[in-house]
């Protein structure tokens, strides 16, 4: 168990180091001059040159990289090129918004996928199971932004039940907060739910064929009780893995969904700063996303061992 933890931690740190170099490298490759973008069309070449010096863009690339990474290690994310405001508080601010959205979508995905996926597995030879599979297949094929546009058109513009877009912090007006969270949460969550449903289905189908389920059924347990007592824990492993992998999809989906629903989250911040060529800002946000995904994978690796005791005994 301990060895497993140490190995996983080493992998995590190495991944972080490599990704920081990649993130930085890609930013350098982005075409366009950040100083010119910051100053606009009216600025003179001298002014642009001065700003390049101020940003440190004329320093050697390795030096820029080292100063950025050492800042990150000290939790100093630096200042925005464009607004000169500290980056860290802005990212925290936007992160809270995105976490609500992603969290809501994640919960929704699980709430939909587990019962529906199980049902699909238990009914896999019946028409109802086939119909559910077909519906889930459609859900997989629909991108989150399209789901968002459809939901807005129906529930906001046509029916007028919910706001089409916008964001209110929960402490300010909890009712408005929830009303504004429903549609973006649904568009992100339902699509992920559809993907997850298919994994739940195949996972449950797999355990259904296991000997211990047959034994449980032979003891007289009904199909669902047998699954509940003996199957779910085993079926959970692949599902948890997929769920973790989906977190990165959710974060990326949030970028687009935030734009469609005008939500001031991390995704819209990222898009704005890419267009502003606020390089340090973009690097910081992307690194944070990378960190989030790597951390989740790390936790999942550790969780395997908790869910499946067999992994504790064997070599990790």
């Amino acid at each position, binding site marked *: 168990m301990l060895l497993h933890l140490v190995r996983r931690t080493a992998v995590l740190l190495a991944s972080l180091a490599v990704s920081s170099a990649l993130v930085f490298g890609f930013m350098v490759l982005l075409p366009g001059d950040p100083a010119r*973008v910051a100053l*606009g069309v009216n600025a003179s070449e001298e002014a642009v040159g001065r700003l390049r010096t101020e940003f440190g863009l004329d320093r050697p690339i390795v030096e820029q990289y080292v100063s950025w990474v050492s800042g990150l290690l000290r939790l100093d994310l630096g200042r925005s090129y*464009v607004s000169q405001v500290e980056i860290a508080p802005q990212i925290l601010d936007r992160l809270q918004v995105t976490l609500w959205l992603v969290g809501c979508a994640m919960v929704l995905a699980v709430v939909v996928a587990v*019962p529906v996926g199980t*049902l699909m597995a238990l009914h896999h030879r019946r028409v109802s199971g086939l119909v559910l599979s077909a519906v889930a297949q459609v859900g997989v094929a629909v991108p989150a932004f399209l789901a968002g546009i459809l939901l807005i058109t129906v529930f906001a513009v046509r029916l007028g039940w919910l706001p089409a877009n*916008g964001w209110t912090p929960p402490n300010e007006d909890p009712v408005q907060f929830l009303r504004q969270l*429903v549609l973006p949460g649904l568009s992100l969550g339902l699509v992920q739910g559809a993907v997850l449903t298919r994994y739940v289905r195949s996972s449950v189908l797999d355990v259904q064929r296991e000997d211990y389920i047959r034994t449980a059924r032979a003891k007289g347990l009904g199909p669902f009780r047998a699954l509940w007592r003996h199957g779910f824990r085993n079926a959970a492993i692949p599902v948890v893995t997929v769920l973790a992998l989906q977190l990165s999809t959710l974060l990326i989906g949030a970028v687009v969904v935030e734009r469609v629903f005008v939500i*001031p989250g991390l995704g819209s911040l990222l898009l704005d700063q890419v267009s502003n060529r606020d390089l340090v800002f973009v690097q910081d946000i992307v690194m944070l996303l990378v960190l989030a995904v790597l951390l989740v994978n790390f936790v999942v690796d550790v969780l395997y061992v908790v869910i499946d005791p067999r992994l504790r005994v064997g070599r990790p």
Partner: protein
Amino acid sequence: MTPSRVAASGSVLLLALTAACSAGSGTSDGTATTGAGGKVGTSLTVGLVAEPVSLDFTTKDGAAIPQALLDNVYETLVKVDQSGELQPALASAWRVSEDQKTYTFDLVQGAKFTNGRPFTAKDAAFSINRVKSDWTVSLKSAMDVVAAAKAVSDTQLEVTLAKPSNNWLYKMSTRVGAMMTEQGVADLAAKPVGTGPYVFTEWRRGDSISFAANPDYWGTKPFFQDVTLKYFKDPSALNNALLTGTIDVIGTVQAPESLQQFEGNDRFEITEGTTNGEVLLSFNNGKAPMNDLKVRQAVRHAIDHRALLDTCWAGRGTLIGSMVPPTDPWYEDLTGLYPYDLAKAKALVAETGVASTALRLRLPSLPYATSCGQVVKSQLEQAGFTVDLDQLEFPAVWLSTVFTDADYDMSIVAHVEPRDLAAVFGNPDYYTRYDNKQLQADLAAADAGTVDQQVDLMKKAARELSEDAAGDFLFLLPNLMVAEKGITGLPKNAITESFRLADLSRG
């Protein structure tokens, strides 16, 4: 539990979720939510597109900052009215000396900054001098011509120019003329202090900027007590926000074809006017093949402007024949100079042999450029041109490729600055690479002459520019606004840097 009960419990959960949503919405009729409680006549939410990067336009460029702050928080000595004429603002009157170098302004009495200090001629002199000393944006060059600004008395300001300049007084109506106070410039990025009808209250980055009516305002008090400017990057999100009552006004419609959903709906009213945004098919006049007058003329004759406007901007907008919008005093209809004439264009293409060279039409990734670019390409190809079209990300890539390096033959971009003929065509280093000594001399003389001479010389310059086909002026962007019925006072023509909130009212 049997499978059917599992299904049942699943759907109960979904139902509960849906019920939670509809319970919330049951309290609202879907026309006005907390964000836009405009019904009581006290607050208003205006939807706009570009959010400022900072509140400090003395160090940050971008049209979004003055759009939010000028005329609302900050005021100027003179302002431009809807027909493009200069009108009194913080200066009730002004006189120009015989040699056109000394301007004397009589200032209004009773104006006060929001920090409680009275507005005096000292503040006016301070503001003008500070542009030269502390501003960093390139627009500050508008004040280079000022030799001295001093307070004669509390209510009289005297400004001496190094040489006569008509443009200077005009520029005083833009952000460089914003009146500030020495005690109010410590934190311009977060706490703007001005004399205007509104006080800045809150900025939610990525979302909105809010203002409250200034209780001590010296002029006519504004109707709306609280105004929020809400920013939408996505045009359809902006439209939906108005349709569902999140906002009361769309300040700039980004997709004119989307106006259909508001037309014929008696909840809304559409306002259409003009702007200063000339959509220019720019030519790289500095190198072959666009340095050949006949090639440029062929391009101008090959473009059917009416058809182009109908196709790419839903027919909204004004056709202009030069770099002058109809609200400028020297506007003339020059659309007849290069009428659509395919035969002539074909003959010129054949004569110059330009068909063998592919013209690179390099577009910024902006809605109007993308849609017009396709039309321009197909119209030019009908005349026998070969056109290579590519799209460059705006602003970053377009700025470095087209604007800085002039690595292009043609591009399409809207030049939205007011009175920008001289900036775009008077400077041979600008990306249009247009070097015309006669035009430069005329522009300088126009700035230095009397007001009448200025009008005549600018007319001459605009005609010269158009005849020489220094670019093709596709059309003038329309100012399109949609508002809930009953909202009055919207600025029909968007020809200033500001979005005046104080004139708005609910009838």
